[in-house]
């Protein structure tokens, strides 16, 4: 009898190992998963637009609005408050803890601190050294030197990101972004992104190429290495795609006519013409004044030398560097450049689309030695 009782206790303890699972099952039974957001679409300016939508909803539905003498409306939203003002001009050093909405223009002096979001329906001008949570502007927006934005920036008009400004999330504009030296952000997206010293006169966007090396090569080029390209290392994967065994460092102008996977590093000489996609298991370096029509994907680093014109997408598993005079644009769709590590943008860069990094996108000043006529650099 004693053993029967012991057995019953033992079996009860044994069951306890399943008891929580049993309870969880009872809670789940009959239910269906709702973990996916089926309506999700990827939008580059999601943060800014989402904030605008929420704000609009709050202002339309919040019951209590207190009128103040200065025409300021105050809305209570849980623990935080929303201030709505016609136009605002703050002196330097101002600290603001609440959400601020301006019906018109907004400007603030240096070293202000805005600890909650800002919504500017007109143009915005943020003084140097100011610290922001996030800002959305329906007009143009200028961030002064050394501004820090803890989250995102979104502007309908032109967005100027001042020197040494730090944006810890995304910066988007529906017009243009000017990204000055020393500034960094996680990603930039606009119909036109430029860095300092833009000079379109020296850029030749459709040069005539005289390639010395062609890939895939003609039948007369089957033997021996030429300018770093060894035809014996080129194999067909089928489907018009090739792979190249080892590093492919072409020292002369290259014309690439079919997609290629390089199982090593890839580089090409100046004034190359890449009409198809390139994938390299190592680094990719594109020679000066080349035209890139295919996508470039590097498991390692990716560098575009000066005056390269790309009409495609760039992706790097390591770092990416776009040198002086690089242009990125294509018909119909914007271009994009993304790297897992840092993306460095030199001076005189114009990109119609997006530059992003899992680390940071940073603008630097190209040394003055580069700022000479196009041919001299090439």
């Amino acid at each position, binding site marked *: *009898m*004693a*053993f029967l*009782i*012991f*057995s019953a206790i*033992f079996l009860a*303890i*044994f069951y306890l*190992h*399943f008891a*929580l*699972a049993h309870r969880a099952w009872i809670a789940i039974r009959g239910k269906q998963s709702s*973990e996916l*957001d089926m309506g999700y679409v990827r939008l580059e300016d999601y943060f800014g637009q989402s904030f605008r939508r929420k704000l609009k909803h709050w202002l339309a539905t919040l019951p209590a609005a207190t009128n103040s003498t200065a025409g300021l409306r105050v809305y209570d939203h849980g623990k935080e408050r929303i201030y709505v003002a016609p136009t605002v001009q703050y002196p330097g050093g101002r600290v603001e803890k609440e959400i601020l909405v301006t019906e018109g223009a907004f400007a603030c002096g240096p070293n202000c601190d805005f600890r909650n979001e800002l919504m500017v329906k007109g143009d915005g001008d943020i003084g140097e050294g100011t610290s922001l949570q996030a800002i959305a502007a329906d007009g143009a927006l200028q961030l002064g030197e050394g501004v820090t934005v803890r989250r995102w920036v979104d502007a309908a008009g032109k967005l100027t990101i001042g020197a040494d400004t730090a944006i810890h999330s995304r910066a988007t504009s529906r017009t243009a972004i000017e990204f000055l030296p020393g500034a960094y952000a996680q990603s930039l997206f606009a119909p036109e992104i430029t860095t300092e010293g833009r000079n379109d006169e020296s850029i030749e966007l459709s040069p005539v190429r005289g390639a010395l090396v062609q890939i895939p090569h003609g039948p007369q080029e089957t033997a021996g290495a030429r300018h770093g390209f060894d035809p014996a290392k080129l194999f067909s994967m089928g489907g018009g795609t090739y792979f190249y065994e080892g590093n492919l460092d072409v020292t002369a102008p290259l014309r690439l006519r079919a997609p290629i996977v390089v199982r090593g590093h890839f580089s090409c000489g100046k004034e190359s013409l890449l009409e198809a996609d390139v994938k390299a298991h190592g680094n990719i370096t594109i020679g000066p004044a080349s035209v890139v029509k295919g996508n470039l994907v590097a498991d390692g680093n990716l560098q575009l030398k000066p005056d390269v014109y790309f009409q495609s997408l760039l992706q790097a598993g390591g770092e990416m560097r776009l040198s002086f005079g690089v242009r990125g644009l294509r018909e119909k769709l914007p271009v994009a450049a993304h790297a897992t590590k840092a993306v460095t943008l030199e001076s005189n860069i114009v990109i119609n689309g997006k530059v992003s990094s899992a680390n940071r996108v940073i603008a630097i000043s190209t040394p003055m030695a580069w700022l000479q006529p196009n041919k001299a650099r090439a």
Partner: protein
Amino acid sequence: MQLTRARVGIALGFAFAVFILLAYFAVPLMALHSSMADTLLRWAGIPNAGWEPVSVFPGLEPGSGPLVPVPTFSQVSEGARFALILGIVALLIVARRFSLFRNLANFLIVLLLVSAVVNVFFDTFQLQSKVFGQIWLRQELLVWLLMPFVSLLLFLLPQPNLGVGLGWMALVQVYGFLFSVLRFVFCVGMLHHTGLLFMPLLWFALGTLSDLLFLLFFYSISVYRTSGQLWGVRSSWQSQL
């Protein structure tokens, strides 16, 4: 989550420290296991003539196994034989009614049938409780020794808070010990009342499988509690991608 070298090093250090501690106190631990089992055997009404030293591993002082009378097949009660048949029928019903249990139930039925055949044809074959104690200690001692490393992988490294991870590690270690005593006493009790009839099944179900079960039990709770702390909710980290 950043699994830094320092973090991995500290966690490994803890696991090794516990391992060394357990190895150093292996003999007292086995003695404590026997002593607790002795108390439970008495509570469960299982006659035990005492504990005899059994060699667990060479170089290690012996542990001890109980001296509980174990009947051969011809000696077991009708009730035990009936229980065997009842067990097979119950498993057959489970296999028929619950398709998810079918394969497990079928395997357990095979174990019972093999056991019955062995008992019927080799009536003299007996497993002494002392030998069973020896096998049990060999297995469980190793489980205790290896447990810190299992904890390292399941509880210590995935925890955002090292202290909480160490808490889980201690809990699992202590529980593993206590659960082992409980299972051992139940097995010895069954051995005393039903001889070898149920032993293959019990050895399969209450041996390392039960160690696996209790680890899973605690792991599921640890994941349940950690969920949301480590990477936040799904939507928050997904939006970063």
